[in-house]
């Protein structure tokens, strides 16, 4: 889609920001393409918001360079950058009406009143809010305020739109709705969106690409599916919901790879795409929903099948969660569909668990 030599929309090179002694953002290098929906994902305090604020000009990096459309912007104040931010707390001006909020940036650009009126009407149409021009922010619902905040930034047609967990204040249903809206709007306007969130489902469903951050560092960058299926580290695996980790030695037998854990389990692992160093301990990540669970009196064990004992069972609504002990040491979390025969399995029962070797993922050491 993009010509290879195209200038990146936003480029970070070795960007570092310290607060006090600790590095909030630690030598982050990254390229974001034009028109991309890019997410920074990570737990609170991982540096994702600081990164966003540095792109927006609200913080200055201690070292490294930030480029927007090929121009170095390190020393430009926020009002001289072609970016706009949708803040987590929205920051709508309470003393101005919706129309005045939307016109704020346009007035500073000294646009004519007619242009301003047209653009405001147009943008209200885009975010599905016509007719609310003369309301004040506190007379709007949470979802409407959200849309106004988005519109106030979009109306300036910035090269890059920065969104700092803008949906975190909304309830779940509204958040889902707004996620779809954001995606639609982004496709319609074609602006680069950089989105910060701690909700991995949100990032996965919206982003073209995403970056996982931890302790100020980028851990993994890639398309959501790639990160979801091939997490590189235990942190990413855990963050993406692959809650089961096995550690052990990697062994090879007749062209097949196995992980031999300390407890003696021999787990069939997917054939590695890149050559693996077979010496030293390895980690295998496995999603709870990828595991099948059966009562012990079922069919004889097939490939990659293990005997275990149910320690705990809890109802999660859409699934049943089992905690199974394998070989007396390994704890495994299993999500079973609410209507499978797993519903008959009780605590303390002996069970069989198995999974498709391809659904597990070998991690690179952290």
């Amino acid at each position, binding site marked *: 889609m993009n010509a290879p030599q195209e200038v990146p929309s936003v480029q970070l090179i070795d960007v570092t920001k310290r607060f006090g002694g600790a590095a909030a953002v630690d030598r982050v290098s990254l390229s974001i393409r034009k028109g991309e929906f890019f997410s920074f994902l990570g737990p609170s305090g991982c540096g994702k918001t600081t990164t966003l604020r540095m792109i*927006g*000009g*609200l913080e200055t990096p201690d070292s490294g360079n930030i480029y927007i459309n090929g121009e170095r912007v390190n020393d430009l*104040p*926020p*009002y001289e950058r072609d*970016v*706009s*931010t949708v*803040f987590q*707390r929205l*920051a*709508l*001006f*309470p*003393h101005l009406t919706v129309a005045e909020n939307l016109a*704020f*940036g346009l007035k*500073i*650009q000294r646009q004519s009143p007619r242009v301003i009126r047209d653009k405001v009407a147009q943008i209200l149409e885009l975010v599905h809010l016509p007719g609310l021009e003369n309301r*004040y*922010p*506190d*007379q709007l619902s*949470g979802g409407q305020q959200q849309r106004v905040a988005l519109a*106030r*930034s979009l109306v*300036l047609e910035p090269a890059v739109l920065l969104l700092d967990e803008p949906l975190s*204040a909304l309830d779940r249903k509204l958040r889902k709705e707004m996620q779809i809206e954001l995606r639609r709007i982004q496709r319609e306007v074609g602006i680069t969106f950089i989105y910060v969130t701690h909700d991995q489902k949100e990032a996965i469903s919206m982003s073209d690409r995403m970056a996982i951050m931890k302790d100020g560092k980028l851990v993994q960058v890639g398309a959501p599916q790639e990160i979801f299926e091939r997490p590189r580290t235990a942190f990413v695996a855990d963050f993406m919901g692959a809650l089961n980790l096995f550690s052990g030695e990697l062994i090879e037998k007749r062209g097949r790879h196995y992980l031999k854990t300390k407890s003696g389990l021999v787990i069939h692992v997917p054939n590695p795409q890149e050559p693996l160093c077979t010496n030293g301990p390895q980690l295998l990540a496995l999603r709870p929903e990828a595991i099948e669970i059966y009562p012990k009196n079922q069919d004889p064990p097939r490939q990659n099948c293990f005997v275990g004992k149910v320690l705990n069972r809890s109802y999660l609504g859409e699934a049943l969660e089992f905690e199974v002990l394998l070989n007396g040491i390994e704890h495994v979390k299993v999500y079973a569909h609410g209507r499978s025969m797993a519903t008959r399995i009780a605590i303390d029962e002996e069970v069989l668990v198995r999974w498709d070797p391809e659904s597990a993922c070998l991690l690179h050491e952290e």
Partner: protein
Amino acid sequence: MNTTVPTATARRRSIEQGLSTLLRGLGRVSPPGLLGLIYLFIYAPLLILMLFSFNAQGNLAWWEGFSLRWYEELLSYEPLWKSLKISLIVTGVSVLISTVIGTLTAYALYRWRFWGKHLFESVLYLPMYIPEVVLGISLLVFFIFWKIPRGILTMILAHVAFTIPLVVLVVLARMQRIDWTLEEAAMDLGADELTTLRRVTLPLLFPGIMAAAFLAFPWSFNDFVITYFVTSPGNAPLPVLTYNLILGRKSGGMGMINALGTLMTVATLLMPLLAVLLLRARRFSLPGRRRSQS
């Protein structure tokens, strides 16, 4: 003797009971009535003064009939107008200055960290606790020491000094309720620092600044003790003129004082009313209230 003690106790108890029953009854029948009693207690002296300002004779002892005589005499009393002018100049200028300095001080205290900030802040509010007499004397000594002639200038300086803490307190209270992301948002939307101040910060602070000015105005206008120390005989603002009227035993002085007191009270009452009306205006409603909805 033995019998009188219980009787006295019983009597006292019955009086207490009667009183509490009365109060409770009153409170139950009409809480506003009870409240009204309290207000009567606070404001009765003022009401008497206002009432007797319309008395035909210049005394506070008995009612001689309704008349506007004292108001006529007061309004034709030459020194009154001079005093009013002095009062308005002193209060107007000092409130303006202290509002500006106080707002800037509050901004610095709220937004910046600097060495000695805590000490500065606690010392700042001292004038509110120091007895006025002490403050007045110290200002007087200060002016004499620097050989500044007493008059309008010294009054303005003194009034600025004791109204600043009030302004800082009120503006700070407002600042604590402002979402400062709004400043970032303004800059993000293209406003430079000055535009942000003009279009966002000041409008948001405006109610607080106005409230501070409206509170500082009567403080300054009505001040007698401090003013008395730093003024000169020829420059008596209204409170000092009132005092001089009492001292001077001018014929009809009491009646004029009643009339003057009434006018000053009414003017003072109008000030906060004006402030409330101003703050009620829709544009200045406080942010942050909306969040309580969700």
